[in-house]
């Protein structure tokens, strides 16, 4: 009833092949974009922007990156945290050597370094898949983490072993470093994430997306249709790592402002894997929903009881958060193993036929 495409006729294949063929979807997306680009920077509090939205967007991008590999191409990876790290450290070194070049260029370029490393560690996918490939990517995770910790060149021989983000500007506006306004950083993150999501969506709706999904669903049939498996899988590794790398660079440069190697530990990899499992494998929307659930839910659990003046000790809140989030993940996996994205599809279908059951 509220969500019915009746009367919307598509007269060209071009419009039928579009990403959002239904008008209500397009309107909804436009509203979200207006809110994100205009309303939030004008009226959002610093806390909302800095502690909630920026990390949410960054993690969404990392989740999209992993989803391209695991959800769309069917290659399980546990190295996404390390690939994020490659992006962050590459960006740090690049801006150290070439401080004159705009930092935004380096944030995007750092993705290419990450892609290169991703392709290298993706080579075993020629022979192995499933859990065994996951173990091979785990090796990437540990090796790269070791590099971040033990190669002083990567963090400019700092005593602390951490990287610190220098102040950089865009058109005279400070965008990184301790003095950058949260709103500015938010807009930059939002722009990058929006453009890259659009690119991912385009890719997934075209030839390359179909080839990846073909490899995921039935690799033998894909091969017998002329799809060369290794180049296809390596492209997936490259694109996925590119996304993770950019997310990592943004994580450090536009959110944390500095990072130690343990930011890119195996925990980070698992966190992103949870996001795409809970959100929905093989769904871009699911990447956002998963990031929201895993990242924003703990914040809500932490802040809402405080609003009601409940005198709970901070440590207790922390423990409670772990328990509740854990329980919710298990709940979602049992009720809807295809993730939040599938729940949203079911809800859409219900809205479409309401008030009738079919």
């Amino acid at each position: 009833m509220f969500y019915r495409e009746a009367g919307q006729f598509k007269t060209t294949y071009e419009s039928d092949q579009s990403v959002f063929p239904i008008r209500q979807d397009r309107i909804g997306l436009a509203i979200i974009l207006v809110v994100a680009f205009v309303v939030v920077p004008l009226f959002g509090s610093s806390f909302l922007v800095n502690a909630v939205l920026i990390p949410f967007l960054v993690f969404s991008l990392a989740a999209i990156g992993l989803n391209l590999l695991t959800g769309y191409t069917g290659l399980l990876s546990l190295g996404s945290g390390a690939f994020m790290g490659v992006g962050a450290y590459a960006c740090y070194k690049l801006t150290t050597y070439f401080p004159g070049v705009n930092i935004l260029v380096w944030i995007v370029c750092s993705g290419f370094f990450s892609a290169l490393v991703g392709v290298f560690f993706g080579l075993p996918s020629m022979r192995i898949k499933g859990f065994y490939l996951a173990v091979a990517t785990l090796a990437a995770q540990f090796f790269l983490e070791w590099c971040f910790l033990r190669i002083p060149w990567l963090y400019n021989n700092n005593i602390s072993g951490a990287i610190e983000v220098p102040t950089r500007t865009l058109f005279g506006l400070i965008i990184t470093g301790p003095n950058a306004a949260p709103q500015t950083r938010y807009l930059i993150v939002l722009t990058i994430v929006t453009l890259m999501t659009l690119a991912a969506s385009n890719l997934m709706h075209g030839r390359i997306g179909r080839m990846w999904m073909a490899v995921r669903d039935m690799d033998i049939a894909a091969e017998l249709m002329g799809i060369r498996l290794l180049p296809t899988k390596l492209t997936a590794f490259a694109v996925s790592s590119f996304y993770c790398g950019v997310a990592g660079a943004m994580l450090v440069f536009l959110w944390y402002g500095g990072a130690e190697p343990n930011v890119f530990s195996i925990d980070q990899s698992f966190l992103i894997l949870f996001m795409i499992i809970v959100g929905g494998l093989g769904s871009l929307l699911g990447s956002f929903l998963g990031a929201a659930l895993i990242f924003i839910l703990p914040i809500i659990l932490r802040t809402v009881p405080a609003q009601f003046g409940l005198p709970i000790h901070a440590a207790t809140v922390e423990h409670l958060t772990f328990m509740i989030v854990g329980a919710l993940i298990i709940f979602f996996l049992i009720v809807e193993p295809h993730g939040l994205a599938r729940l949203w599809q079911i809800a859409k279908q219900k809205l479409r036929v309401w008030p009738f059951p079919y």
Partner: protein
Amino acid sequence: MRAPSGQEIAAGDVLLSLENVSLAFGGVKALSDVSFDIRKSEIRAIIGPNGAGKTSMLNVINGFYQPQLGRITFKGKARAKMRPDEAARGGIARTFQNVALFKGMSALDNIMAGRSLKMHRGFFWQLLRHGPAMKEEVEHRLFVEEIIEFLHIQHIRKVQVGRLPYGLQKRVELGRALAMEPDLLLLDEPMAGMNLEEKEDMSRFVLDVNDHFGTTIALIEHDMGVVMDLSDRVVVLDYGRKIADGTPDVVKADQAVIDAYLGVAH
């Protein structure tokens, strides 16, 4: 509709020939010293009891297995070792005994995936999905729509194939193979597990493909009625050996074939 690839071969000439092909897995001989040919634009059936080596035969033809001995000539050229994707580029398409569709994708996307080889716009156009990339997409969509219409599957275009009934899945799989515009189409038991009506439909599609597009078809089938009605020539395998080869009538009367199917009194 069909763009000829490579050198043109007239109908009736030999498209693919196998000479003395042998394939063994360790000590198990799947095929021993099999020779036969497939002519342009014919429907060639491969039959035989279970385990006779029929599917192995198809796997050899499309490069999934490499025979230890023997020579394969395709489109007049002797073929060296060949990977499945190279065979596909050469114009060999196939369907599977157990449906091997891309289960998470819609019927339309499955058939569109069959066009992957024919689409050439590179990565950066794909990222934009406007201009040339979109034009190419629509061009191929038009071709795919022709196939969809041909197979009468318009109503399930956007349905995820995992949810389709078996008969329709088989049809989508045929559509996916046709999307490759193959010179040689290999069908591995296209009618397995179907009821009479579905078999009749599928037989009609096979004949139509052969008629309209002139596609050469090699099919494996257990339903003798179907085989005898559809095929121009039949080759019979038993225990990896060829025991008969010829028109359906000749094969039907062959004593070795009757023995293989009914057994011999000792």
